[in-house]
């Protein structure tokens, strides 16, 4: 399965290597660098590459490449999924997944990788199990460790791996027992230049943060479970209960986890919270163009639209922009040609507007296509699909937990074509 792993920084520096079988020279990465060179943008590197003796399967995440080497047939998604799981684990342990943080924690990273794979086959990927064996570094602990020579490796043995609920530690104890559920929905949409919806759908997840003592058995039910068209669960959810009763019944992992991701059935019309009036044009002669964008609320269900942000990847021939924003600030990145307009809250009385001129490289032909507008927004206290949690019950433990449900709507891949 997975033979070796190389972590490569964006600049092409191999800063960590780990081999689970015999050692493979890092020169195998040269094929990867070649592909990277050819692709230009790191996003464009093909995830699966073939070299004379090996196969390279890589992911690009947080400006890092995780390049894994295999020698035999393996489902590519198996490796890709695992690599993402590794990145998730780093994120979980160190708060971020970046070159510097990995370099700072090389030993912990190595210990983690050692536990996650045995002979190239995933062994322990559940974060609860891992945390039992290797404690995440905290500032206090690292200070203590340097003074006393203590270790990050847990003294206990990973009993979690044996239990029938491998995702939960035993003997969890909290003084405040709390369970929070965030229903987060994202609107994916493509609008055409007249504002008509070409494509729209809602994807949602329920992120949970459960800090409950003992072995609680939770049941979460919805007011309108029919809305959920396609779902995927955390392994803790009992599938049969969902099939028969449409309730989520589970023994939760300890801490943060994603309980459920769902797709709202496409029969339901998707409410588009904002409309965009835009006019971006490039003049045929003379090196300039104009830009005029106004954003207004459309179907917000009476809620405030927040963290509104507009991103426009400009054509490469645009040299600079000279704009005036009635609200918020804009920045234009000269190297990537990305115009970013951070609006903040959307005031329905006074609609934010951004207008002005674009200066285009003289002599360059008029761009064929106008850039598309990507919108980011957030609406608190609203699940745009109308999904509502009806109740949360706990069985198996005696105490009364504190429960909370929060709804947020965000823009996912929300694109306006111009």
């Amino acid at each position, binding site marked *: 399965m997975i033979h070796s792993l190389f972590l490569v920084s964006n600049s092409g520096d191999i800063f960590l*290597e*780990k081999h689970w079988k*015999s050692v493979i020279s890092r020169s195998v990465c040269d094929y990867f660098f070649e592909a990277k060179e050819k692709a230009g*943008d790191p996003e*464009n590197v*093909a*995830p699966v590459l073939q070299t004379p003796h090996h*196969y390279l399967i890589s*992911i*690009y*995440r947080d400006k890092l490449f995780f390049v894994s080497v*295999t020698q*035999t*047939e*393996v*489902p*590519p*998604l*198996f490796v*890709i*999924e695992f690599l*993402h799981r590794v990145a998730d684990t780093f994120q979980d342990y160190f708060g971020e997944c970046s070159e510097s943080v990995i370099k*700072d924690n090389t030993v912990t990273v*190595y*210990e983690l990788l050692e536990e996650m794979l045995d*002979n190239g*086959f*995933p062994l322990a*990927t559940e974060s609860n199990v891992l945390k039992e064996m290797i404690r995440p570094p905290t500032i206090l602990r690292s200070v203590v460790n340097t003074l006393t*020579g203590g*270790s990050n490796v847990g003294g206990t*043995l*990973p009993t979690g791996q*044996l239990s*029938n*609920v491998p995702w939960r530690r035993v003997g969890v104890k909290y003084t405040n027992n709390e369970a929070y559920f965030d229903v987060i929905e994202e609107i994916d949409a*493509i609008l055409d*230049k*007249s504002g008509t919806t*070409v494509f729209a*759908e809602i994807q949602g997840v329920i992120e949970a943060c459960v800090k409950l003592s003992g072995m609680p058995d939770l049941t979460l039910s919805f007011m309108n479970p029919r809305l959920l*068209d*396609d*779902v*995927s669960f*955390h*392994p803790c959810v009992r*599938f*049969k209960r969902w099939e028969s009763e449409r309730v989520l019944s589970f*023994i939760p992992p300890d801490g943060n986890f*994603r309980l459920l*991701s769902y*797709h709202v059935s496409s029969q339901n*019309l998707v409410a588009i919270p904002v409309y965009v009036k835009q006019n971006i044009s490039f003049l*045929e002669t003379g090196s300039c163009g104009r830009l005029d964008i106004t954003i207004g609320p459309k179907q917000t269900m009476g809620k405030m639209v927040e963290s509104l942000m507009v991103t426009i*990847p400009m054509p*490469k021939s645009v040299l600079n922009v000279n704009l005036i924003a009635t609200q918020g600030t804009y920045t234009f990145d000269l190297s990537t040609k990305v115009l970013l307009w951070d609006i903040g809250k959307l005031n329905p009385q006074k609609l934010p507007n951004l207008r002005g001129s674009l200066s285009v490289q003289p002599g360059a032909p008029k761009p*064929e*296509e106008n850039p598309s507008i990507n919108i980011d927004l957030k609406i608190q206290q609203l699940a745009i699909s109308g999904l509502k949690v009806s109740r949360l019950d706990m069985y198996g433990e005696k105490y009364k937990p504190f429960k909370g449900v929060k709804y947020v709507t965000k823009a996912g*891949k929300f694109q306006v074509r111009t």
Partner: protein
Amino acid sequence: MNGGLSSLRSEAAGAMRTVLVSAESLQLTLKPELTQEEQALTQSGRKAKEAHTAGNEDLKEMLESNKESLKLEAMKRIVQLISKGKKSSDLFPAVVKNVASKNIELKKLVYVYLVRYAEEQQDLALLSISTFQRALKDPNQFIRASALRVLSSIRVPIIVPIMMLAIKEAASDLSPYVRKTSAHAIQKLYSLDADQKEHLIEVIEKLLKDKSTLVAGSVVMAFEEVCPDRIDLIHKNYRKLCNLLVDVEEWGQVVIINMLTRYARTQFTSPWKEDAVFDDNEKAFYDSDSEEKQGQKEAKPYIMDPDHRLLLRNTKPLLQSRNTAVVMAVAQLYWHLAPKHEVSIVTKSLVRLLRSHREVQYVVLENIATMSIQRKGMFEPYMKSFYVRSTDATHIKTLKLEILTNLANEANISTILREFQTYVKSQDKAFAAATIQAIGRCATNISEVTDTCLNGLVLLLSNRDETVVAESVVVIKKLLQTQPTQHSDIIKHMAKLFDNITVPMARASILWLMGEYCERVPKIAPDVLRKMAKSFTSEEDIVKLQTVNLAAKLYLTNSKQTKLLTQYILNLGKYDQNYDIRDRTRFIRQLIVPNEKSGTLNKYARRILLASKPAPVLESAFKGQLGQTPLPWTNEMDRDRFQLGTLSHSLNVKAAGYQELSDWPAVAPDPSVRNVEVIEPVREWAPSVGKAKQPKSDDKFYSDDEEKEEEGSGSGSEDSSSSSSGSSSSSEESGSESEEESSEESGKTSSDSGKSSSGSEASSSESEPEQKKKKRTKKATQRKSKQSAADSDSDENGSGPVGKTSSSSAESSSESDSEEDSDVDSPPPPSPPQKKTVAKTKPKVEVKTKKEVSLLDLDDFSPAPPSAPKSSVFSSSLLSDLEGLSLSNVSSAMQVTTPSFGPVKTYELLHHMTGKGFSAKYHFPRQPCLYQPSMVAVQVILTNSSDHSLEEIHIGDRSPASLNIHCFNTVERLEPGASVTVSMGIDFSDSTQAANFQLCTKEDQFSVSIQPAVGELLMPSTMTEPDFCNEQKKLMGMNETSASITMATANTSKQNISKQVLSVANVGVVSSGQNDLQRFAGRTVSSGALVLVTLELREASTALLTINTEKSVMASMLLRDLKQALSQS
């Protein structure tokens, strides 16, 4: 001193723990306390490498000290060295001493080191073995497991016997965790020493019997690696694996599912047979054992093996897994194993995966692309999920484009082409070029849109980007080759553009077209040749070759005009630097110029050069064959030969260790091999807390008395298991669909397109490329013979495909006319190009002006004049660039904002009560009709809610008999519960008279009628405000109908008004400067009469509604409908 020094050092090292330690910096920090030796080293100023060793010396010292913390520190630094790939093998003796340390972290780090370097230092590594051997006997299972893990990871051949022994012992350990580790160790030992295979297989056999979910995944992995061909080992464990599957950890699930896919393909018969009868049989099958005998008796009808069904049923819940690899594994299992009609349950899950990371998207899209070639229907409902975003990575864009092209069919082609219009303008030029190819493929596959696509591509020739133009030329060339008869004006047009095209491939393509069809453009071709003669020396090689070709062909057809030119070009070619060109010139000269030596060949020159060439096939890159898309995997064989979801499929190359998926056996091997004597309950499942799966059936299944029974008879267990679970899944199996449905469907569409392409070679079936190819070559040879017969005839008839003589002669006569007129005479193709309708439609002023703009565009190669940023004007000019791609002949249809996306009203056509379970609904998609411009497009959704499948659904008699309907293709078979959307076109002749016809199935006929609302008989039309006023003035008096209406309060905003109006009538909004005046324009579909709607808002929510049109009946009806819509809230 020693103590002080070491504490200092530990402090220094602690401070640096988080920094990258290079040897130099280490020395700097330690400088005050340098030992003599080290001082000597630094003073002599040695190189970094030696300094490095010095650093290791230091580490060695730390490792040999007595303090745990120092040792740990040293090990951490060593691990950092390992992680950077730096050598530290010289420390091996010092490190290996610590293998027995009590400190767990230290021990683990030593293990890391040991595993990394044992291979290099085999002798020393042996020192550690005894430690592990001792640990293997430890009472704690985790210590045993980790000892085995490390021991088996040490790749030292000498210890193979020890490993073997340890593995055997661990395989019968009480702890499942240790057994799991031993399964991993099997693979390690096998890779170290393949001779141990036989012994290892014994262990695998033993572990396969293990009932722990912990072990299952790992042992199957070992099986796959060591002895994937020993399928016989699986038999006894098959049912257990199926049942355990849900509870195995996710990575194990992937491996097991993939293995079981392979297994099932060798053990069960194909569920894809055509004459399958398993609707009721199957349900009954699970109910009683008497059925089994019945199944054996009737060998003919297919009955799914219960074990086969068990696998399908038990993997289905895993589609809900959060692990994308598991979902993909289940999807491929269904694809390769499930009856055709069940495969589509994986669609939703696969589409869900597209939300995941970029890399996951890539792999999933690749698989969907392969699937969508064979099974369009599976993904068609999710077509919009494959729309491209500008932020997608290029390879993802290309894959999505591929899938969209695969999904294109008559019903959705207009939507897809509209989407393609956006892509063509993409900044990503490689992607734009790929889109053009995709358009070309759609054009050849769906004959209805060939002309529209062609026109659109012609418009693209005026694009500013060279790659786009070049790609268009190449694709046009291919398209023209399929239908060469009718497109002389396009060739002329390309000739005009010739001077402005610089991409060699495009120039060469145009020249080739000129030569090939030089008889259709007798005036232009010689002129092009003249130009080429001038610039010959400065052209690229490929262009030169085509110039020579063109010259030769012209010489043969029109030697009067071109003789001298040809000779000139041949002379130039004779002295060209490139030997290819010199060769070609020499060859051509011999062939065409008559002289005494050339003899017989000369006579056949014409037949050699002007033979009709078979048209190229534009095909999916995922089908392989033609390397025309710029994808990396072109020119290779079919991808679908590989199991989906595998590395080999992704790379389209057979990867090392790939296991072929065998074909279904004709006769199933004995199913009794899977019978097991006793299945003990697996207690580790934890009945109370684990996933509650099949609680009832399990109880029954595993109850004690049952067990005894099973001991008695093996088959008993099988029956009870299948019967208990059969009831739970009866719903999913109740469908009695034919498996071949979709393949039939796809076959049908392709054959249809073949039929309607009127003898041309446009049909390219994707399903049977080879057969087609054969046919084509046959056709070509036939044609050749025909042609030679016709050779003596006039020029026009000689090269045209069979049966097209009339049209070509018509064209040749019109060629002397001006270009614009030339088309009028030609017979109307299924959907005529725009120009024709412009000439035909009566009130055409505004359309014509628009048309002229775009024609000017083409001629002058200068795009529309810079427009002031008044949005509507600007956008319309942009749109006109590509409107040829749109399907309408009324060019404006695409500019209307809402037509096809608004909420559509659905009407009942046939209620399921009257239709005996067969129901039909219809709606007006408000898209221009593909079949004939005067028809209104209607989409009909046929649903079968009866309990048997319906066959041969088609349209029967109609009344009035003159009613012009374009029927949908006969639906061969509609399964119970299934529904299908078909599109048809009806010419209502601008009246709201209902179209009555009969909807027939094989057994029944139902009279139904479609009654159009008056608003649906219109097509939107775009015009400017002044144009509107002009037209309105012409339609005063009798042609004007007006009424004053009271509006509902909710409707007073401008937006709401237009929404209401658009919901009633399919008209276009005319942008207006006045706030209180709203205008809408449309034309009737049949006769193209203008319908103008004006709404003048007055005070207090009253308004004056005016309708101007020649069709006064329509006006009054429309007025009534609008009034109703606007007054109700």
